[in-house]
């Protein structure tokens, strides 16, 4: 769909993207299945056209916007980001997207807006685990602090590998926050609310001692049941050692200042 997009700032030149086939076949989508393979198949049933996003809360201009209108307004870029899952694997994805901050500016956030809540699509007739009320509270919800949301690294992605986003990878619109564990990067967003208070987020609600609100990638803070010190890179073969995980997934230079006065062990 987008053949020759400019590669945006912050795309690490040294990163070699993970083959598309591997990315398409290895993704968590708990709404469909707890199994990655089944999820990739079942996600094909998702209805993504037409798609609109409601933006509301502490903003001057709340409203519901068609995705195509949003895309007309925003500048698309390719961003090649490392993506680190809390399960201990990582990949490099050439996303196509636009700055979330730029979108939020168009609705004029009020000074009272301190947090951003993202809500994913609710289609229980298609999404089996929603229909069965399995595991998490549905729909899936994620959240960011306003400064995290406005950060230039944070994007809303609509594609990858120069094409529209595969459904299992979050079509038609997903969040990408490269310095946080993958589950923060919510898929199939239908609602964005600016709030005074932090929202209750899905995984944090499910297991607060295991999945913090911040969930910044941090090799020094282990998950209660497994280490986060290293990661298996998709595409790397047998007998290739695991990669040592970097603080903020390697984006510390850009984002460490957001957390300079915080104890990252406490606010994990």
């Amino acid at each position, binding site marked *: 769909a987008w053949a020759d997009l400019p590669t945006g700032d912050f795309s690490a030149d040294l990163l070699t993207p993970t083959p598309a086939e591997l990315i398409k076949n290895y993704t968590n989508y708990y709404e469909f299945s707890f199994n990655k393979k089944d999820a990739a198949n079942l996600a094909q049933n998702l209805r993504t056209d037409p798609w609109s996003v409601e933006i509301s809360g502490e903003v001057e201009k709340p409203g519901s916007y068609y995705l195509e209108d949003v895309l007309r307004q925003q500048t698309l870029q390719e961003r090649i980001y490392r993506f680190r899952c809390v399960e201990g694997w990582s990949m490099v994805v050439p996303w196509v997207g636009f700055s979330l901050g730029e979108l939020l500016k168009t609705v004029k956030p009020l000074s009272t807006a301190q947090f951003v809540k993202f809500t994913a699509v609710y289609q229980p007739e298609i999404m089996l685990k929603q229909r069965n009320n399995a595991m998490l509270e549905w729909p899936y919800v994620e959240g960011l602090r306003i400064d995290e949301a406005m950060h230039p690294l944070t994007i809303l992605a609509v594609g990858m590998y120069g094409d529209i986003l595969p459904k299992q990878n979050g079509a038609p619109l997903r969040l990408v926050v490269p310095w946080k564990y993958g589950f923060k990067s919510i898929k199939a967003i239908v609602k964005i609310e600016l709030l005074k208070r932090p929202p209750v987020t899905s995984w944090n609600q499910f297991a607060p001692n295991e999945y913090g609100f911040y969930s910044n990638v941090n090799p020094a803070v282990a998950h209660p049941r497994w280490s986060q010190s290293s990661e298996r890179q998709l595409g790397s073969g047998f007998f290739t*050692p695991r990669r040592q995980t970097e603080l903020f997934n390697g984006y510390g230079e850009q984002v460490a200042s957001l957390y300079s006065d915080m104890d990252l062990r406490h606010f994990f």
Partner: protein
Amino acid sequence: MIFRINNLRSKFIVVCLLPLLWLCVDIAFDNLGSNPVQALHIRLGDWSLRFLCLTLAITPIQTITKWRGMADYRQLFGLYAFFYASLHLLGYLLADHALMWRIIGIDIIESPYIWFGVLAYGIIFLLALTSPKWAKKRMGKTWKKLHRLIYIAAVAAIIHYFWQLKGNLAEPLFYSIIVFLLLGFRVLVWVKNRQLTKMMIPTGQRVLALAEKQGVIQEAPRKQR
């Protein structure tokens, strides 16, 4: 019956290697998906757990069907549980970590789910070591005591499986039900035996009293306080 089972044994030895062959084929044809190393761990861990369950199933099957002579199969399956667990461990050290000992050390220290894997492996390693018949003979009663540790190994293996997962608990749940049933069978047998023993004590005393009355023996031994 016994003859037929013994005849089957050598075939079983080969059949139990098929999962490994299947895995090798999948590796050769790049059939393990986007994260083959993870798939390798799961595949080998699953087979080790399956053989552990089979090992634990032999005694109940013997008790229920009154077949004899299945102890050889128990040993065979137990050794295969050890075999696949060893490959699982080698996969972790070699295929996943390429023997980077510093990272392996941090990983083990920080991952409680691995501690349970280490415990389970430690136990079945000892059991495999003492599995030959001459070891069994030499160890006498200690052998039975030692080999009862397999119950702990099974529970530790299940926890090891559960604790590494974020969401999909269907598979470990399946195995925990199996292990629960297999261990539950032993608890039932133990309770039943205890009750039988209890019932035997009054009978014994009655027999003793009767013998005394009829002058078969002189006097009942006094109870020691």
